[in-house]
């Protein structure tokens, strides 16, 4: 990703003693045993360690410790923080299912090290609207247009649309295509995605006017 270097540069400020704390995660060999047809070496879980970086996810400050500081942002969000709305699709930044916002800009979290977002603001699909409150205009538009089929790529598409509309409040087709062409959908929801983006723009205008 073209901007990865820039991200990493600003990250280091937020990481304290990342290298010196690495050894904390070393595991102790507890025991090994054999079961039917398989040999297994079993180890204890990592020892909890002191926070080494923080970042902000959906307006909540998160302290991150080893081993999670060495993980990709996608895994930290999903497996450590339980924000499973962001999806693993390809692992190499090609499909867009893992897209989140970092300081409002769309980022592929499957190729973004957690350390790259230290001290930065991350927004996931869960952070677009309050749990029991009204939906974000883009989420509402997705429902109004009945976009999702299997739904797996939709969080990435929705988050990317939020970023698009922040930049271009009323995008035309070519602007929509440029912003979302990198978001793959095998079910074939592309036409409805385009319609939903336009619908979201209108909802946003309506809400601002209200």
């Amino acid at each position, binding site marked *: 990703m073209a901007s990865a270097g820039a991200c990493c540069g600003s990250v280091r400020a937020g990481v304290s003693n990342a290298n010196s704390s690495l050894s904390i995660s070393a595991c102790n060999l507890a025991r090994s045993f054999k079961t039917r047809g398989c*040999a297994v070496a079993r180890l204890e879980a990592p020892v909890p360690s002191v926070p080494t970086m923080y970042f902000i996810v959906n307006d909540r400050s998160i302290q991150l410790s080893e081993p999670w500081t060495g993980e990709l942002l996608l895994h930290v969000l999903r497996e450590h923080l339980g924000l499973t709305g*962001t999806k693993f699709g390809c692992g190499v930044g090609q499909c867009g299912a893992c897209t989140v916002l970092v300081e409002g800009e769309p980022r592929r979290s499957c190729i973004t090290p957690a350390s790259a977002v230290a001290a930065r603001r991350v927004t996931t699909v869960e952070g677009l609207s309050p749990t029991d409150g009204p939906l974000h205009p883009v989420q509402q538009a997705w429902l109004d247009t009945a976009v999702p089929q299997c739904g797996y790529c939709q969080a990435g598409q929705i988050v990317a649309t939020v970023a698009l509309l922040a930049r271009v409040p009323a995008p035309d087709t070519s602007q929509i295509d440029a912003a979302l062409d990198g978001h793959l959908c095998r079910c074939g929801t592309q036409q409805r995605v385009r319609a939903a983006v336009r619908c979201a723009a209108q909802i946003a205008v309506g809400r601002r006017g209200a």
Partner: protein
Amino acid sequence: MKRRSLLTGGAALSVGFVAGCTLPVIPKRPAPTPEHARGWIRFEAGRYALRLPRIEMGQHIATGLKQIACEELGIEWSQLTWELPATDQLARVRATVGSDSMRDFALPLAQACATLREAVAAGRTAGDLQVRARPMGELRAFRHSGARWVGARVPLEHAGAIVRGEPLYAADMRRPGRVFGRVLRAPASPELASHPQALDEAAARAVPGFIALVRDERLQLGQAQGLGIVAAAPGALDRIEAALSIRWRSEPGFEPTEVEAALDVDACLARGGGRLAHRVHAEAVDGGTPWDVDLRLDIPAAPHGQMEPRAAVAEFDVNGVLTVWAGTQDAFYVRDVLVRRLGLDESRVRVQPCRVGGAFGARTLCTVELEAALLAQAAGRPVLVQWTRAQELRHGFHRPPSSHRVRVRLAGGRLQDWWHAFASSHILLTNAAAPAWLQRVADVIGDDGVARGASPAYRIPRRRVEFDLVRLPVLGGPWRGLGAGPNHLAIESTIDECARCAGSDPLRFRLAQIDEPRLARVLQRAAEAAGWRAGPVAAVSPVSPVSRVAPVSPVRRGRGIACGIYKQTSFAAVVAEVAVDDEGGVRLLRLVCAHDCGLVINPDQVRAQCEGNLVWGIGMVLTDRLPLANGSVAAGSFADAPIPRLTQVPPLEVHLVDDAGHAPSGAGETVIVAAAGAIANALRDATGVRPLRFPVMPATLRKSSG
């Protein structure tokens, strides 16, 4: 030589399988009955609860069956809740495949709901009811007029959770103490015997987060012996894999040219003395006169490309009961495989289906579920296994490649003799699950999946349709529409050439030789909607496709039409309009579709399925491929095995024939029979070049300098 035996199905392979295991677990396919449906719906504390007998994978069958239930029960939308039941909460149901959920499950569900409605109205609120198998005509859910939920636009179930990012899919299931697993295999086709020969275990153990290395012979996939790793964090799996530096030992590979040669339909015909092994139609078409149309079409292997790489979470409870959360099309088959391979009693294995992030046939076997269960058993903790995209491509199964020869004689401008010969690898009895010896035994009965859609829907006096099944070293299996997509692409390409040969408009040519009124109706509907006026092709084409004159515009435009019947019950026609630039770059201008699946339960979602299949048609013609090299799928990402992108999708127009005179049939695959053919025919119209090898590469369509 071993590599030869791979392609000819020699004895060497089967011996290995017989020695390794017994008959594979065969999926059971019970027909849903009113008696089964009794377990799907119940009334409790003033509310109704539906245990969905189908898997939810984007077809929104939960919404559709809820419409049926609410209509029949005569209740508010909010009075019925539903769940995806685990295998211990429901009598066995068959796999969610083949666009048959509405066709086969709506009626028994409505029958059960009618019985329940009458019982509740009579004041009964407890006990078991005997469901009466009343006919469709007596049920409220299938009345076309006066319906409240059926035929209406209703909120999509799960959609709110999807847009909020709530946990729905297998990998979203978080269990206390859950760790992460992966099964490593040789970078070779699982059809080739392989195993780890050397590895650096000490280096792996030194990786922070390492939990276990699992050597278990049951981690075999096809002929590929896997090695399990378990780690405390997902990223550690990558680092452990790298640290292991595994050297794999694998059977000699194969070259793509060998696969092509094995599947070459002309070579198959030559080997069989002009005959292939399996017949769909067996009329004699031998005659002295030359063929008027003679096409050879080749359609490659293609990935499913579903966005969710398969995933499962497995957990043993304190009593040793195994629960597996899985994104599968066939939870009961997964349970059967787990019972067999883990040697557990059926009562000690539960499979909890989760929403599937795209299936398209890819989730019909048991793969990642067994891996998660074995790793959880070894590690003594809940384990999540999600395949990487590279594993999906290298170790999953795919649309089998197929090779087609279609020859036609015309008489008086009509179809007279039709001979379609094709070769494919197996689909229903896939090599991803069935050993070679079993395939050879079962080859006596053919493979209905390969044959699907091979019978042309036109009035043809003499028809011979036959095929060979070739076991290939690439894993093939069910892919949206099974054989219907590729077979119709071949048929509809040929019909288009026949119309040209007869000097007839392709719409008029088709209509003149179609007896099925529902097929004729969708053809007319699509043509009308697209503004298709019958006439000689050249007269309506902006640039004559065979013109040798310098074009007035650098863009060549064309239109194409195609149609077909899916599983005898659903009908579709598509008109495609394309523009092709001088370099052969293709831009679709629009796709117009008409679809008839009888009574429509949810028009918006039938449209959505049609739209999806139109996009799959784009893929079949322009993108879908699976490169092979060195005995393996040579694709590790979407860059190597692309699927259609947003910018390749033109405006899609869907017109529904809502025919209450016919019971609801399927909509999940119908349009795939017409979409690819229409696009291919439009390319032919625009360029004069008949697409014969798919996907169509720009070089094929480049404007010749002459």
